[in-house]
């Protein structure tokens, strides 16, 4: 078994596999415990009903579908809503220490789009708690962890995935993992955009590796712009301001002091779904009612200094230290930031299997669970539920799969690609190309999209792809060379960017995180279809596919739709 990615999804999958008795290798680009998951702040959604006892899986399921504008894979949303409470309790049994209710149970907080107070949390460092707990559970269970090792290609034996090729960042030496099952859990792709909450790791590696190995990408047009990122100072632009600020009562205002969400969603106000809040802020700024640095104001100071410091300690420090703003006494400036990819590898709901035998995916790099827009807190629970499921699915597959053999030719092709970056005649600067890619995606494929922009972006991307063939190492050798790494990352980001742009061009409507200025309304056909991208002889092909529904869940869905109409 080899698991690529040691965030919440990868770790949870690894725990499942090694518990099933399989020899499990867990590979990650950074040190263990530094994956994106560590940055998650607000909480993990699970209908534990500790605070609001009316809550249950059916409401969580309905909220998830409503948030996803009914493009979610229904079965995935069902598994997720039903199983997340157990996954959270299990974390507690492995040592996680959540904030408590008066009765001593796990405390839950309100979050956008969730009908009830549903997010189990630890102040605003829930991700750290989650990853540390899984990490400590994992290392004592005999998982082999390979840190600072980057996978650059999946290896196949005929149609089957059977290995992974990569290199050690420290030495630059190549390494090959042979496996009967492979799980991709590489996280997101936010680095395709200029303003993002994602770290350097979010380059869509799993999306691209899977795509290149023959798996399909689903819902790529849906990129979540989180409504509240920092906008100042320039160095931290995009850095996340957790939704927990609004969950704890934070109020959004424009430069006239108006609480503008009254205009856009009077019912849910600040706790409307992320797509709505992000667009509202964007519109306020565009129409000249923004804050000095091009955002709007978010104020939590009315909750009192004591409370804010206790419930949002890292936000308090983040603003104090990085922006010289004291959020206990005044508002912070915030604006939308590219945050999360709803789109990802198409998988089977129960097992996380892609269509490539032996290849599985879980976490942010898989698609289907969140539809057109993810609710806050539904990612951490997704990681656990589908991490565990993919772990089991991959373990079952590994047990019955015959031994595979690695192809010599594939291995040398993978090696040639990586050494090739050192032998370019006049190398293209990878940093420069990255900046251009980010600018293009940000300005042409951002929060609001339209036909002309998207077509221009497709053309630009074609140019970047040509240039990406010429990127190379400008200086240094193979040891811990970030420039070399970026050459490879760019190839992944370009595949993701192309899939996002092509799908966005096809979806001629506005829904969830995808807003078209030229098609501002919902469209019935698109309301029941996802878009699927796959590689056909080196050309990206994007096709619609009906949403994966399930007759046993129809009543729940109809019930919620009727309620929203009222």
């Amino acid at each position, binding site marked *: 078994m080899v698991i690529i990615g040691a965030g919440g999804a990868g770790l949870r999958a690894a725990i499942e596999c090694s518990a099933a008795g399989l020899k499990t290798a867990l590979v990650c680009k950074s040190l263990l415990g530094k994956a994106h998951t*560590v*940055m998650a702040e607000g909480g993990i959604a699970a209908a534990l009903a500790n605070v609001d006892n009316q809550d249950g899986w059916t409401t969580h399921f309905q909220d998830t579908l409503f948030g996803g504008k009914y493009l979610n894979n229904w079965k995935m949303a069902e598994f997720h809503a039903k199983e997340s409470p157990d996954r959270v309790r299990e974390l507690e049994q492995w040592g996680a220490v959540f904030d408590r209710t008066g009765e*001593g149970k796990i405390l839950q907080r309100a979050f956008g789009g969730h009908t009830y107070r549903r997010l189990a949390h630890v102040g605003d460092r829930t991700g750290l708690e989650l990853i540390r707990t899984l990490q400590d559970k994992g290392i004592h269970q005999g998982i082999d962890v390979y840190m600072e090792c980057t996978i650059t290609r999946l290896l196949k034996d005929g149609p089957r995935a059977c290995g992974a090729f990569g290199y050690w960042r420290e030495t630059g030496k190549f390494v090959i993992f042979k496996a009967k099952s492979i799980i991709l859990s590489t996280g997101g792709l936010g680095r395709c955009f200029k303003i993002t909450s994602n770290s350097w790791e979010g380059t869509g590696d799993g999306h691209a590796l899977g795509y290149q190995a023959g798996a399909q990408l689903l819902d790529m047009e849906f990129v979540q712009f989180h409504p509240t990122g920092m906008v100042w100072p320039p*160095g931290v632009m995009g850095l996340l301001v957790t939704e927990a600020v609004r969950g704890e009562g934070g109020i959004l205002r424009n430069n006239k002091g108006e609480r503008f969400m009254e205009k856009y969603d009077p019912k849910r106000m600040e706790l409307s779904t992320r797509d709505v809040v992000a667009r509202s802020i964007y519109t306020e700024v565009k129409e000249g009612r923004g804050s000095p640095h091009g955002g709007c104001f978010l104020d939590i100071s009315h909750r009192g200094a004591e409370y804010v410091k206790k419930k949002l300690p890292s936000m308090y420090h983040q603003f104090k230290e990085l922006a010289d703003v004291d959020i206990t006494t005044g508002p912070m400036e915030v604006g939308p930031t590219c945050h999360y990819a709803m789109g990802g590898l198409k998988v089977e709901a129960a097992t996380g299997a892609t269509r490539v035998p032996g290849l599985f995916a879980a976490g942010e790099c898989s698609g289907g669970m969140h539809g057109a827009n993810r609710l806050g807190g539904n990612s951490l629970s997704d990681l656990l539920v589908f991490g565990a499921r993919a772990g089991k699915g991959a373990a079952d597959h590994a047990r019955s799969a015959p031994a595979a053999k690695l192809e010599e030719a594939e291995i040398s092709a993978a090696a040639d690609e990586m050494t090739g970056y050192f032998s370019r005649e006049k190398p293209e600067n990878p940093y420069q190309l990255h900046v251009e890619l980010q600018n293009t995606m940000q300005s042409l494929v951002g929060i609001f999209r339209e036909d002309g922009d998207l077509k221009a972006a497709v053309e630009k991307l074609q140019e970047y792809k040509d240039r990406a063939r010429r990127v190379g*190492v400008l200086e*240094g050798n193979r*040891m811990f060379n970030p420039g070399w790494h970026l050459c490879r990352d760019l190839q992944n980001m370009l595949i993701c960017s192309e899939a996002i742009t092509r799908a966005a061009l096809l979806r001629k409507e506005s829904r969830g995180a995808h807003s078209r200025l030229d098609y501002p309304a919902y469209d019935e056909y698109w309301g029941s279809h996802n878009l699927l991208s796959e590689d056909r002889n080196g050309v990206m092909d994007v096709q619609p596919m009906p949403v994966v529904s399930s007759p046993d869940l129809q009543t729940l869905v109809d019930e919620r739709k009727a309620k929203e109409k009222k």
Partner: protein
Amino acid sequence: MSKREFKVWRGDAAGGKFVSYPVDVEEGMVVLDAIHQIQRQQAPDLACRWNCKAAKCGSCSAEVNGKPRLMCKTRLDSLPDGEPVTVHPMRSFPIMRDLVTDVAWNYTVNRKIPPFTPKKDTQWLMQQEDVDRVQEFRKCIECFLCQNVCHVVREHDKKDHFAGPRFFVRIASLEMHPLDSLDRIPLLKKEAGLGLCNITKCCTEVCPEEIHITDNAIIPMKERVVDRYYDPVQIVIRKLTGKDKKD
């Protein structure tokens, strides 16, 4: 836009030296921004670790002007004007390349700490005030800055017998967990070498998470060790009951 001189240590295990780079200073810039700018414009192969850029992951530890800091949290305007900013890798760990050090030792130490083991038939109820302390310890982002400054860790021959402040914090988070059933006091006394710590508090001073490493973790645990091994009453109880008792 003003300029500032950066002296960044470049090299590997075989040796290295400070190299000067001019950096364009923007408002509100942190040291990590400067390193990224150098990478983008002047030294594309400059090696450094980072992830969150928000003091949440503990990747970007280095010594800035000789002081152990998170680069993503160190504002340029907090450093003395008119002199170059020096950036050096952490000194207690072997150098891999440039600002990247080999911190594998920390992961080895962690593996030796017996994990959380709940009491039988626990109801999973805990009061907030009983977990406040544990939560303080669990804030640790594993930046290893405390390990870096601790003089015991710096004396390399002691590394095999000393867990270091980061792991005293970790052991404390387990020992003070209201529902844990294991006893790690013998571990603290022996393998973890808690006795080698002479409470200089250097670790607490550098902790970016402001964990009270010495006051809240080390000292209370030193007391537990003393109670266990040197308190005659406890020794008698242990002899009578025939087992190590956990408070």
